[in-house]
């Protein structure tokens, strides 16, 4: 099977992470009243980004050694 599953997973979560981080930075802080005052978009966005990039890193590394 020549599609490495880590690539689409990494891509999706990196994209989600970037979107949430950016949104977390520009959004009105008033909306975080419901999430106990925590800017969850920013913080969880970073978690998703870290996960996504890790997947991409290993996926790309494997595809490089294969070719």
């Amino acid at each position, binding site marked *: *099977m*020549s*599609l490495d*599953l880590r690539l*689409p*997973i990494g*891509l*999706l*979560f990196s*994209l*989600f992470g970037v*979107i*949430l981080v950016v*949104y*977390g930075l520009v*959004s009105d802080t008033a*909306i*975080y009243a*419901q*999430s*106990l005052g*925590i800017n*969850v*978009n920013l913080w*969880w*966005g970073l*978690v*998703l980004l870290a*996960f996504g990039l890790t997947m991409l890193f290993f996926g790309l590394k494997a595809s490089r050694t294969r070719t």
Partner: protein
Amino acid sequence: MERIHLGAIDYTLLIIYFVVVLGIGWALRRFVKSSDDFFLSGRSIPAWIAGLAFISANLGAQEVIGMAASGAKYGIMTSHFYWVGAMPAMVFVGLFMMPFYYGSRARSVPEYLKLRFDEKTRGLNAITFAIMTVFSSGISMYALAKLLELVLGWSFHASIILTGVIVLVYIFLGGLTSAIYNEVLQFFLIVLGFLPLVLLGLKDIGGWEGLTAKLRIVATNAGFEPGAWTHSWQYTGAPTHNPMGIEWFGLIMGLGFAMSFGYWCTDFLVVQRAMAAGSMTAARRTPLIAAWPKMFMPLLVILPGMLAIGMHATQGGFLPVGSDGHPNYNLAIPMLLAHYLPTGLLGLGLTALMASFMSGMAGNVTAFNTVWTYDIYQTYIRPGQTDRHYLRVGHIATVVGILASVVAAYAATRFNNINDILQLVFSFVNGPLFATFLLGMFWKRTTSHAAFYGLLIGTVAAAIHYGVTLPRDAVPGIKGGFLGAVAHVYPSEMALNFWTAIVAWTSCFLSTLVISLFTKRTKTDDELRGLVYSLTPRQSDAAMAWYKRPVTLGVLILIVSAILNVIFW
């Protein structure tokens, strides 16, 4: 009830997810060249992917909405579905059954039955299984559409069409591989989408301590001991002492043994994922890898239900109350989503919810198209055609499977708790099946006639038991007692379901045993090689490092599950 409003950012996340899901199907379409590729992923899936797909295929509506609903309704006792039910069964299927499933090269569970026993046993299993999968998939669709209608105001019909079409396209293009790949993606989405919800909810309620304090009120209000929602075993001495209405014996034998082994060891929906693995070792490891995330799933699916009911009891009106005066337990997760997640993360949570429904549905559809094509069409309708022909039939079966699910979705509207209806169906069909496999795999004297009639007797016995008993406070009908006379009243629907499974398993086991002794074997020892334990060479793991051996993994899983049971005793 107030509706959730989605922002542009939420829709963006949802749309990206749909695009990636369809993209995976599109990227995989080139690899589907034969029916083997389409139905079995060409037996090439690595163990970790098969393992995550193994639990993700089961992570549909039943798991996410149903388990949260049960968490609210029964508290931490719901964890028995995991730590008493799934864990031992998953270890058993990995260690003891996979060598025969994978080693026999059977392409489906019904096909194994054909190899081990005969045509009629396969036919019976294939047909009941096909009906059951369509039913499950329909319930999944129904639950999703109903939920989206309620919390987002989306049209019920539009939701059904949207999810149906997306699942159809990605399976149609990439077959089982596409379903499996998407299931793994969906698994990560579900974990990462629901985790912030659980963390925020726990923080808000004051941690486990705070939750326990609120659940004491829930338990006292319901007329139980204060700890009934937070102890999984302490109140199982008598069925009237716990909200699930079951005592330890029924729990262990019904849920832990008959029901869970029936599901995890014989249900083709999950077994198919392991059959698609790239090697015998990968196939044996599949359920053992799956067991680890599965073990911690209660944190993601049961805990939200407990949080929701805790808040409902103390803040009032957290969950919408239905016309029967009970809170709508199925809304535990959506209500938490709306309560804690601001736009942005809300989109992620919603995407996770969508993902869970799709993975459950896709699991059913891929199992259905395989059983339909190999075990029904190729066997009874048109045998001896080219592989190309069967590949085309598989494509058509995918479309038909989705259409049938849609019909089932419109038909399934009765139960308050989806989980109960699914468990009921499983207990009729899967309960007896495990007895047949157990005898078939470990006793070579088991005959084909015995397997067939034993299975039939088990299913009929389950139906009769269900027909003459009733849960407390229920009227005879779909909830039991449909045969008129009510011989016994159980304290809850759960208890009735567990005991139905026990009756199904026991009657199938005993009748198969007895009939075997009075009928002639139709298969010689030679024909049963690779299919029966005593006639198959053992898998030797001596070459593997001890910590890589399936046995080590299995024992570890059981130890950690036992510890979890003790912690939440």
